[in-house]
């Protein structure tokens, strides 16, 4: 009988995740034992403190690289550190938006329209469970892009998804819509997790190993049954493509983005994309690298239909949150282009794009939270008419962020699109570049239509106005605006930093 050997963990390398998980557990305890009056402040300080501490820790280990941090389950390398840093920055900005408790229901368990709900609203009680849920989701997101075996990948996927399902249902206004969004997100998310798991089973069957390195070696020496590999790869990809909302697995995206409370939408749209694409990058660049001949054609088709579908359907949207949802589908297509490139510049470009897009998304949804009337947020695009005349500053910031989504020069979006398409061109995949540029042009139409609507049409008198933002919301909006412009004008420092550090450790 072998003696049991305790696993050796290098805690300093794992500390960004452990700090966030510790903070989440602490936040649950605060939720249970601290009086209602000081809970919002306590929860907000714990959440922000945890995230900042974790970011500091990521910064401290930025030159580290190790495959043995948790007995081979996670890989700490350049892309891991960069993606974790991006997720934490986005999460901090997201928590600034979530701190505006105006968007969350006082009592999630109360039936909409019931007397309990009215009492909860009247007493002004705040239920702050959204903070621990956010922290758990962030912990899963930090683990997802660094996971180096199928078990860790699956657990991280669920740890990041489960809190998000609940957070989608916490809206204060239009609660039925919000609950419906939670139900849809949950059922479709669980459905795709089952596909992911079934794919993982077949990859394990093919390679005899659950580690990504083991799968890579098995593909290289090609011992097994290729059918197992193909089933495994395609089912696993379905699960991943669902998370990043690529067509044809996008059906949940518009509904959930629209139904969820807007701060949650902001956090989810930005951070889940970084985590999901981070994991996709690692899986496709390390495990599936040598079978690219099998997956590249299909993924090219998915990238093309995702870009075109997102851009074309967004034109028909009358709701700002749905429009941003379809725009995020189109951006998922652009990001898949970076994965298809399968070269060093593709990796660098995707990481840069994820950061730039995430920051701009947080800012854009942050502004959506500010446009309100007496019954809550106004998301109908027609009622945004003339916003530029009433609140020129907010409208200008929103216009800039939309231009960044469209990829107009002097914004981060242009640099992101340029680097990602040149990486794809370098890899010889010209079809995808042509379609990408074409759908960027289509997408520019509906972004610019919103800008024209805001600045060049007469305001309608229906009580729509931009509320004075809280301090934290203002910080998010201004930071997102500043980063978007800065990365558009001086992208070189970040691009250089990414290209010098981003190398996958195998």
């Amino acid at each position, binding site marked *: 009988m072998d003696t049991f050997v305790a696993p050796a963990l290098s805690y300093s390398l794992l500390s960004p995740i452990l700090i966030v998980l510790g903070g989440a557990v602490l936040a649950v305890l605060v939720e249970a034992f601290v009086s209602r009056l000081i809970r919002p402040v306590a929860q907000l300080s714990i959440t922000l403190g945890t995230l900042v501490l974790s970011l500091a820790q990521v910064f401290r280990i930025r030159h580290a690289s190790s495959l043995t941090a948790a007995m081979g389950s996670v890989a700490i390398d350049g892309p891991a550190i960069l993606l974790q840093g991006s997720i934490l920055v986005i999460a901090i900005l997201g928590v600034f938006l979530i701190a505006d408790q105006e968007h969350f229901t006082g009592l999630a368990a109360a039936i909409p329209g019931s007397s309990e709900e009215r009492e909860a609203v009247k007493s002004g009680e705040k239920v702050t469970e959204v903070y621990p849920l956010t922290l758990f989701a962030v912990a899963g997101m930090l683990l997802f892009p660094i996971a180096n075996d199928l078990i860790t990948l699956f657990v991280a996927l669920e740890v990041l998804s489960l809190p998000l399902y609940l957070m989608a249902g916490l809206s204060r206004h239009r609660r039925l819509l919000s609950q419906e969004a939670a139900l849809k997100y949950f059922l479709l998310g669980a459905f795709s997790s089952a596909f992911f798991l079934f794919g993982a089973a077949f990859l394990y069957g093919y390679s*005899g190993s659950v580690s990504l390195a083991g799968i890579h070696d098995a593909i290289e020496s090609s011992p097994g049954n290729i059918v197992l590999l193909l089933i495994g790869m395609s089912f696993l990809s379905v699960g991943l493509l669902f998370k990043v909302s690529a067509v044809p697995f996008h059906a949940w995206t518009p509904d959930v983005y629209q139904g969820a409370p807007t701060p949650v939408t902001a956090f989810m749209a930005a951070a889940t994309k970084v985590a999901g694409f981070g994991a996709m990058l690692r899986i496709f660049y390390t495990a599936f690298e040598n079978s690219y001949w099998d997956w590249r054609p299909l993924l090219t088709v998915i990238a093309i239909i995702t870009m075109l579908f997102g851009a074309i359907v967004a034109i028909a949207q009358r709701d700002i949150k749905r429009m941003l949802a379809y725009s995020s589908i189109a951006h998922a297509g652009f990001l898949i282009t970076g994965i298809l490139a399968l070269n060093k510049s593709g990796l660098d470009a995707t990481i840069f794009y994820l950061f730039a897009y995430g920051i701009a998304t947080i800012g854009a949804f942050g502004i959506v939270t500010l446009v309100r009337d007496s019954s809550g947020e106004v998301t109908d695009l027609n009622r945004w008419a003339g916003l530029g005349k009433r609140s020129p500053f907010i409208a200008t910031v929103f216009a800039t962020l939309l231009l960044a989504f469209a990829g107009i020069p002097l914004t981060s979006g242009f640099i992101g699109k340029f680097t990602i398409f040149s990486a794809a061109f370098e890899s010889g995949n010209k079809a995808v570049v042509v379609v990408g540029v074409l759908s960027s042009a289509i997408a520019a139409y509906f972004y610019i239509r919103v800008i024209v609507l805001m600045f060049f049409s007469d305001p309608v008198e229906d009580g729509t106005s931009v509320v004075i933002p809280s301090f934290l919301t203002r910080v998010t909006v201004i930071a997102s605006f500043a980063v978007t412009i800065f990365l558009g004008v001086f992208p070189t420092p970040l691009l250089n930093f990414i290209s010098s550090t981003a190398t996958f450790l195998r």
Partner: protein
Amino acid sequence: MNPANYLYVAALLFTIGAIGVVVRRNAIVVFMCIELMLNAANLAFVTFARINGNLDGQVMAFFTMVVAACEVVVGLAIIVTIYRSRRSASVDDASLLKR
């Protein structure tokens, strides 16, 4: 017995689950079909562990069970909330977001 047969059963269970998710309308039944799919994956893992002669697949099956239990907690919470506000757990009734 040839272990490949267990894989056929796993594939069959997975297909039944997937079809159930698509055709059934009650959220609880849809959810049970998803659980069936997860268990199909578990059966495949354990079978492959036997074929490959190592324990990784069995370990994975344990993790899946724990994760599936967590999913039940979250899923039933959401389904019960929506049932209480609508008096129905049909996924077809939840269509306010389609316009």
